[in-house]
């Protein structure tokens, strides 16, 4: 039997994807916040890409000023609630907590953060208001974390903001791409709604910007543009058999899972190809959807995986089995996938080499490719003078996030190549201030 039964109802789905960081109750938040040392020049704050004043908001929680705590958080990070839940906190703020130096459990900063922001969102407490209309307009392409953060920041300064979003929901990968046990759809969308109600930016859904004509029109209509376009679909493997039925991309698989939840049918045996966080997420999710055999196949060693160790541990607990030093050669099967043919690899003088004659086939009913997302190269080439680097990332001035086409600013995955929600939130905010400085220069 698999670790998990196949979920057939919404309730069962939620049970299988129980929140890894559940909300704290008041007592837990009180005791946890009591432990904070209120470090000077706090390492947790410095480890946060958005530099949230963590000791301050924890002290505010401890003294019963939860509203003040929520304001401290949102002032630095417009996606404060989502980040509390989805950030790899053990690598960021919590990883920097000085308690670690004495083997004392570190402060659960992410959960304390959610304790405050969740109350503000649920009660609808207004903390921010738009600035007086300054007569200037900014278009934002993409309603992901970077775009939303940029929009919120610009609205506080009095800009009119229109966001153009290809899909029908805001927050980008926060709702479409994060593992469901990190945050629920409702939590993501409630925060978006909370922000939009206070700051009144416009979002045009199902409005894919993909042509030069559209860009020209936006350039004429707006004083500045922000590109928060993220990355594209899962990259192809260029491997025989990739076109067979039940060979899917990880990003697409996770999106379908988040949108359709228990209605998604995951077969008995699944092979995930890749070694990054998305691969581990997809593997973990397949197992939680009741798949009996879930293999995470990575061409290098376990130590070389890009995924965080704690994410892989979580996947292992869910029943995922790792296959390391195996490189896929071919996806086999008739019309539908029936397995993957691998060859074993080894590290030879620092280079990955295939071991001749070591081919073998692992049977499966589904293959999930998690070998990175394609970049938005063709779209970006439509913008005059926009330079991209060798890895097809938009090049920006790191101080103000202005691109080589001065009217365009950019942030998020399209700039950093694919990072956390918090990085998008930080960059969107930086860009908004860059836009403001540039337009008022």
């Amino acid at each position, binding site marked *: 039997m698999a670790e998990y039964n196949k979920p057939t109802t919404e309730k069962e789905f939620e049970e299988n994807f129980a929140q890894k960081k559940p909300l704290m109750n008041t007592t837990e938040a009180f005791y946890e916040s*009591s432990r904070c040392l209120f470090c000077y020049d706090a390492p947790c704050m410095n480890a946060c890409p958005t530099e949230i004043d963590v000791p301050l908001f924890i002290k505010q929680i*401890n003294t019963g000023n939860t509203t003040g705590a929520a304001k401290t958080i949102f002032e630095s990070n417009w996606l404060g609630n989502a980040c509390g839940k989805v950030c790899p906190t053990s690598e960021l703020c919590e990883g920097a907590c000085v308690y670690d130096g004495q083997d004392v459990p570190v402060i659960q900063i992410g959960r304390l953060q959610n304790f405050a922001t969740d109350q503000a969102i649920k009660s609808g407490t207004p903390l921010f208001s738009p600035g007086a209309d300054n007569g200037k307009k900014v278009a934002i392409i993409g309603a992901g974390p970077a775009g939303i953060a940029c929009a919120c920041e610009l609205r506080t300064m009095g800009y009119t903001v229109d966001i153009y979003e290809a899909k029908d929901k805001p927050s980008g990968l926060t709702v479409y791409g994060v593992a469901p046990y990190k945050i629920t759809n409702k939590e993501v969308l409630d925060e978006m709604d909370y922000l939009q109600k206070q700051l009144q930016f416009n979002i045009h859904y199902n409005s894919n910007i993909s042509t030069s004509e559209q860009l020209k029109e936006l350039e004429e209509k707006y004083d500045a543009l922000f590109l928060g376009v993220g990355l594209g679909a899962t990259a192809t493997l260029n491997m025989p058999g990739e076109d067979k039925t039940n060979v899917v991309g990880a990003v697409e698989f996770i999106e379908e899972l988040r949108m359709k939840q228990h209605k998604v049918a995951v077969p008995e045996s699944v092979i995930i190809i890749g070694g990054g966080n998305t691969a581990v997420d997809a593997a973990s999710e397949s197992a939680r959807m009741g798949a009996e055999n879930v293999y995470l196949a990575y061409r290098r060693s376990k130590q070389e995986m890009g995924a965080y160790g704690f994410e892989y541990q979580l996947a292992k607990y869910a029943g995922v089995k790792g296959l390391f030093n195996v490189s896929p050669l071919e996806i086999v099967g008739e019309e539908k996938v029936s397995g993957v043919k691998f060859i074993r690899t080894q590290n030879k003088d620092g280079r990955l080499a295939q071991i001749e004659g070591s081919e073998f086939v692992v049977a499966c009913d589904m293959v999930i490719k998690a070998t990175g997302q394609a970049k938005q190269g063709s779209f970006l080439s439509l913008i005059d003078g926009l330079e991209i680097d060798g890895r097809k990332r938009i090049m920006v001035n790191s101080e103000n996030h202005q691109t080589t086409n001065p009217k365009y600013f950019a942030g998020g995955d399209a700039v950093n190549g694919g990072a956390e929600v918090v990085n998008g939130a930080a960059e969107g905010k930086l860009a908004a201030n860059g836009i403001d400085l540039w337009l008022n220069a």
Partner: protein
Amino acid sequence: MPDLSINFAGIKSPNPFWLASAPPTNSGYQVMKAFEAGWGGAVWKTLGVPVINVSSRYGSVNYRNTRMAGFNNIELITDRPLSDNLKEIEEVKKYFPDHAIIASLMVETKAEWEQIIRDVENAGADGIELNFGCPHGMCERGMGSAVGQEPEVLQTIVGWVMETAKIPVITKLTPNISHIVDPGLAAVRGGSNAISLINTIKSIVGIDLDTYAPYPVVDGKGTNGGYCGPAVKPIALEMVKELAQHPEIQSTPISGIGGIETWRDAVEFMLLGASSVQVCTAVMHYGFGIVREMESGLIDFMNQKGYETIYDFVGKALPNVTEWKHLNLKHKVVAKIDATKCIGCELCYIACDDGAHQAIRLSEVGGSRIPEIIDENCVGCNLCSLVCPVEECITMEQRDDGTEQVTWHEKTLANTIPTTFDDDRAGGKGHFVPKVTDALKK
């Protein structure tokens, strides 16, 4: 196994741990349960005149997640019938003949004192404690702290009691007075066999921010209460010391009271001269069971130090408690940070820079969060070692060689004290202070 038993002014008890006169000694049931748990004695909740109590009686000072770091109450003396209390005292004594039961008393007239003393003696009480301390309610009726604050009245009443009492008498003092020696002397001069202190401190523990009334709130209003619990221990220790060092009082046994919760607290009181200790708040918080920790800790302490009875160390710290003017001005300590233990919270840095003497700098090594002590600026104030959250990470190292000894008192006698601010002998002269404008650079 050391002998924990005491003979306190003639009151014998298997150990020095007594329950103070308070809610935990309100009934025979509670006192029996306490003796079963290991307490050596109990001072019965004050018997006296008829009272009516209010509903909502206790307030608390919480420090972060520590409940009841301080505690106050507006409860009066016992509201149970005197005859019930006397009957229960008698019954408990039957079960626990070797444990100490002390009857706390508070009445007004000489005739009332004589009557109630006879009553408790007949019930079998081992001693009497005169409640001259209660700072709320009863004092408004001329009893409790109203007596404790008037040494002459106190001495008169102690005199009345001593005329009648056949069992040892302890006089319990209020700390709500500027000089504790005055009532202490009055008690001794009145003939009291022993003294106990402190009773609670007049207090308001907090204000309800919605009803604008002090805690505990009684139908929208409140009154001052009596403050106790761990927060009052330093005040109590000082007052015990004042009496224990006084030539005319020092031979009178002292029962120490005030914030005692652990064996360490108890030993500290004993080192300053108390030969029994009384506990209330800690029991109200955790129940009678805490005495097991106190007893085992005391035994361990005595074993480690080689003491056979508590009288081997009662008062042992007194010679070292002196006046400021007798402290050695040549003694010099400087803070030292153990880099292997430092966790980089930088609290020592900011505490010193903002709150003390600017003698700690942040590390200039990139990436290091281990602050550095600026030896020449350190005045040895201890603040950094007190704020440091890691045990034994910041220690104070002695820098003088211990050979020199000069006190303010000696300097005064030798006529070498500084007399003006510009005097080169003035202490602050030459101490490092950053430039005023350096503040703006940070």
